[in-house]
């Protein structure tokens, strides 16, 4: 029983970071109808900047701000400079350009910083708190949970209760009509990218202290897991991303604990396959209209 609690709470903790990253994928899908395969690499670049800021100033808060700002700027720059120039009729060219961007970013980071991991001390203690003698979440995990909830709530408010959110969603689903109604669609798309990359940078910044350290490939596995989560929950649903993240985190943890570490990627694949078989648009996706 203790073991189960430990595994589940570890899974929840890891899953929250995945959920946060998945949220960033949801944002960009809702705002621009694209899956940004370069999200992880761009987030890693932002975190390298955050590292430099923390090393220079010693302040974690400044590092977080640096990550958010760099992420947003990077998102704007990529969208304006690159994605605007490719056709949006199908998702294909965007995906291909993003893949190219990943290759460029990771290799340049490797050239500049080498392959060594740069460890980061977590801002809160990672010692698990005990409830009734059983270790559950640590202060750091609670911090991540709070951040994730705040982001989800903020996004919910933004997309559903604010004019900006309405404009963002309209620009993604009906660009021509939105333009006719006075919405500056290109600006909305850019804002969507900026938000998305900022959240992704935050997620990776929260991830790094729990791993070996920062290097060009730190977020690769995170991206795959987050993509799985976003697909599971449906790329349109922030709540789906949050729940999906926790579920995937717990499943990976349970499989690692009760079976073996090597089976985890297979479990993720199996889960993804099963869900997509039943609901090709993800669990929370709206039903597809009958076409023929």
């Amino acid at each position, binding site marked *: 029983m203790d073991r189960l609690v430990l595994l589940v709470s570890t899974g929840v903790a*890891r899953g929250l970071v995945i959920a946060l990253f998945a949220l960033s994928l949801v944002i960009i899908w809702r705002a621009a109808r694209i899956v940004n395969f370069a999200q992880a690499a761009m987030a890693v670049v932002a975190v390298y900047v955050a590292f430099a800021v923390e090393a220079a100033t010693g302040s974690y808060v400044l590092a977080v701000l640096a990550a958010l700002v760099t992420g947003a700027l990077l998102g704007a720059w990529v969208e304006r400079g690159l994605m605007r120039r490719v056709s949006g009729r199908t998702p294909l060219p965007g995906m291909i350009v993003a893949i190219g961007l990943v290759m460029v970013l990771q290799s340049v980071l490797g050239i500049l910083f*080498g392959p060594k991991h740069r460890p980061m001390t977590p801002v809160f203690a990672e010692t698990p708190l005990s409830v009734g003698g059983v270790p559950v979440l640590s202060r750091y995990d609670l911090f991540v949970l709070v951040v994730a909830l705040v982001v989800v709530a903020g996004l919910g408010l933004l997309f559903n209760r604010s004019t900006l959110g309405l404009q963002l969603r309209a620009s993604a689903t009906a660009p021509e009509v939105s333009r006719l109604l006075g919405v500056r669609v290109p600006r909305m798309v850019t804002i969507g990218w900026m938000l998305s990359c900022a959240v992704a940078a935050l997620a990776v910044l929260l991830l790094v202290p729990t791993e070996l350290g920062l290097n060009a490939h730190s977020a690769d596995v995170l991206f795959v897991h987050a993509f799985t989560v976003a697909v599971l929950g449906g790329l349109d649903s922030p709540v789906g991303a949050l729940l999906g993240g926790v579920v995937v985190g717990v499943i990976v943890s349970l499989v690692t604990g009760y079976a073996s570490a090597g089976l985890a990627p297979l479990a993720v694949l199996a889960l993804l396959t099963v869900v997509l078989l039943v609901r090709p648009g993800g669990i929370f996706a709206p039903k597809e209209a009958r076409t023929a």
Partner: protein
Amino acid sequence: MRNHAPTPTPAAKAMAAAGAAVVGLTVAACSSPAAATPGVDDETVKVGTHQPLTGPAAAGFSSISAATSAYFEYVNAQGGIHGRTIEYVVKDDGYNPANTQTVVRELVQEDDVFALLNGLGTPTHSSVLDYLDQNGVPDLFVASGSTTWNQPEEYPNTFGFNVDYVVEGAALAQHAADQKPGAVVCVLGQDDDFGETFLQGVELALGADGVATYQTYSTSNEDVTAQIGAMKEAGCEINLLATINGFTAMALGTAAQMDWFPQWYASSSGGDYPTLVGFLGEDVGPKLLEGFVSANYLPNSPGGDWYELFQQINDEYNDGAPFDGNTVYGMSVGYLFAEALAKAGEDPTRESLVEAVGSGELVGNGILPLTFGADDHAAYDGVGIAVVKGGVQDFVDATYRVDGETVSAVEPEPVPLENDGIPAP
């Protein structure tokens, strides 16, 4: 005007094939003629290696080849071996066997190397064993603890260097049994050849039921909470680690977070004190690592002759790169090759090089003698135990050798530093 989109297929295929032929012809005309002994002329000896310099696996290993190159520069500055300088061609394979195949073929066919030295990685090097054997290329001092390199019948030109994982597991397990008889012993291993053969060694010393629990981790998942939790629950007192440095740090760190401080014994691949402190941080690392036990067979003794020589070489020829276990390793490999080259004679050939290594006359620079021979292509069959005391990792008075199925405690026989670390012919 055609009324459908151009179907380029056949013409384009012709162009592609013709283009390839033209490129091939020009390149074929440029390739150098084969030398009598490839890679050796009056001035230089050229050897090559494949190493993971990029990619996720590079973090732990990329500094090794730089250290070996630095040592060779030192030797070259002192006049080389038999008047020849050693040229070390390092090619990156990103720990991907497909790339290893390509770069090794390049080394053999394009760069015409004399021999392959210190090819790194079990899956990577396994993929080129047959090729090297078929082409008669000396394959020296493979950087992996797998027992695959010790097959004198199948691969007469291949020699290992790292002490194999069975020996390490057996030695560490025996030391655990000697230090704390009856303690609960557990093993955390990488989920591949490394972990499995290490476990075999442990069971050699402790018996099949000597291990309370065997946990595995996968390098693609940088989280060992589940495994450490299981070991804590099993009441482990001594944990033997078949881990790479990053995961050793993870294990110690995770256990500390759970308020659990068992005894840790690590293999040489994951027991390097400076590297571990780098992972754990300067404030937490030394405290967690106090009393940390690891296995080693190279002169990794702060204050020792070899150690100080290597430090000097590192400062002068390696751009002041960080000095850690990898540096000692890389330079020791370089030294052993220089020794083999010296023994291979004034006019070395591939045959004379292989003979020199297999003759059993090489001494190396380890804390135990080399075990190369006609029917043994493994370099070391024993390890010494090192402990971290007061922030310094040094050997203690415990050395073990594994002979077939038995582990026995022996006296170390460290090789003294002679001739400033340049092998005499």
